[in-house]
């Protein structure tokens, strides 16, 4: 019956449109969330920055919200966040990439069955638990300090770095590796000189995501970093300076938000704005590395 056929087609057609709408609105939820977060932060943070003055806020070296007059300089916290991130990267990336190489190219199957779930579990552990671990195992050795924060964050970014690097390494065509072996190269030389460079963009993406994870981490850092606002000159002489405490942007917000009011509160939200901008920059870089990978 031709008529029924057309009816059917129309019905499935409208269902198509309906489902499309469902999927679209689901996707829109995340976009909306991002927009709302940005809107809230900027709307509440910008006035604060305006009152303090952008330059005083970003480059001021003293954070004394309770003094009269109060001073709201977050440079020490920016330095703190950058420093612990840098430290975390320099600990986590070499270990993570080497683990990924091991897992992708050298790992016996039986060991892999243990290693892979262990690393996935590491990714799922709540950061407050990491914090406890840091207090129990790292702080007794290194104190509440920059170095403790770096070590702990280095551990925390491992699953991110390992997971992404491993999949990048596994995506390297077997033929590169075989080609290297056929020239008389040993296994490790083939892996390090051919497969690893071939996976470079994927590994870079892993590093960038690791940076994002480290700079945004809050709870674990608060628990081990000591949380004193400090300038770079206090870090010297190295290594003694590295055993002093430090405060990150994230820690600054969480520690004081509970009792802050008025300008102090606005300054903390503005700190969040700065952090968000950092994350946005990192994500732009990440998008960029991915684009280059596709080319």
């Amino acid at each position, binding site marked *: 019956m031709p008529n029924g056929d057309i009816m059917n087609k129309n019905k499935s057609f409208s269902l198509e449109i309906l489902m499309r709408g469902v999927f679209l609105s689901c996707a829109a939820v995340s976009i909306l969330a991002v927009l709302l977060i940005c809107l809230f932060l900027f709307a509440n943070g910008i006035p604060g920055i305006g009152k303090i003055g952008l330059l005083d806020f970003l480059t001021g070296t003293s954070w004394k919200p309770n003094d009269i007059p109060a001073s709201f300089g977050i440079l020490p916290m920016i330095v703190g966040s950058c420093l612990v991130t840098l430290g975390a990267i320099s600990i986590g990336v070499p270990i993570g990439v080497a683990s990924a190489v091991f897992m992708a190219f050298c790992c016996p199957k039986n060991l892999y069955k243990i290693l892979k779930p262990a690393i996935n579990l590491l990714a799922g552990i709540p950061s407050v638990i990491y914090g406890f671990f840091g207090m129990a195992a790292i702080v007794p050795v290194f104190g509440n300090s920059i170095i403790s924060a770096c070590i702990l964050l280095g551990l925390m970014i491992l699953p991110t770095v390992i997971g992404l690097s491993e999949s990048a390494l596994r995506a390297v065509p077997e*033929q*590169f590796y075989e*080609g290297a072996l*056929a020239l*008389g190269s040993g296994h490790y030389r083939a892996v390090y000189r051919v497969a690893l460079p*071939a996976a470079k963009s994927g590994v870079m993406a892993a590093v960038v995501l690791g940076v994002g994870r480290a700079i945004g981490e809050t709870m674990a850092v608060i628990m081990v970093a000591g949380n004193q606002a400090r300038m770079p000159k206090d870090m010297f002489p190295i290594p003694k300076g590295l055993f002093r405490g430090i405060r990150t942007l994230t820690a600054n917000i969480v520690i004081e938000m509970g009792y802050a009011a008025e300008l102090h509160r606005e300054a903390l939200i503005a700190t969040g704005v700065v952090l968000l901008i950092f994350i946005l920059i990192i994500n732009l870089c990440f998008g960029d590395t991915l684009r280059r990978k596709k080319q």
Partner: protein
Amino acid sequence: MSCFDIKNLNLYYGDFQALKGINMNILKNNITAFIGPSGCGKSTLIKSLNRMNDLIENCRITGKVELFGESIYGDMDVNLLRKRVGMVFQKPNPFPMSVYDNIAFGPRTHGIKSKPQLNEIVERSLQDAAIWGELKDRLGKSALGLSGGQQQRLCVARALAVEPEVLLLDEPTSALDPISTGKIEELLLTLKNRYSIIIVTHNMQQATRISDYTAFFLLGEVIEFGPTENLFSMPVDKRTENYITGRFG
């Protein structure tokens, strides 16, 4: 003089026997072609000559393969073996690095560090592979930007850079157009004075054009092995005749 002496070689993938009692004497400074339908064992055999089969799990080998009188499955260093027996693969596989670094990879692997020496090797290898003229101004460019034919000749040059004694080619032109194929064939003919060449090919015209000896494989066995001219003009075995006249395969 023979370069490879294969005696009663059997190869198993798990329970499957891929090569059955292979006996061959492959002569030096000749081009030897392996032909036969897919899955007949010709690629398997070529890969057991530089022990690339070592990479495959459950691969077991019995029998003897001698390279200029030395057993390659004995205590010979496998990396040294692969330096002496170069290989070019079916799909061009230049490394994702510059043309120069591709060629220099092998020599660097074997300990050559001096820049002038590497420069010389790169130039000589590219010249031997008849691609120097095309690439001399692009040494610093990524090898992945070359055409398929250029990539394959680059891979030949890369194999030559470690000064092998034997060159194995596993269907080196099956992914190339006729013009690039012609260039590779021409190249192999010029190389046979200095190297012993073994080529696996699906293309029987290619075997007649360039090879001195041809071996016909079927189901893991060498059915017939002899001078190319004889094998194609008066095959002894009925199965060879059926294959080369296109009656099966």
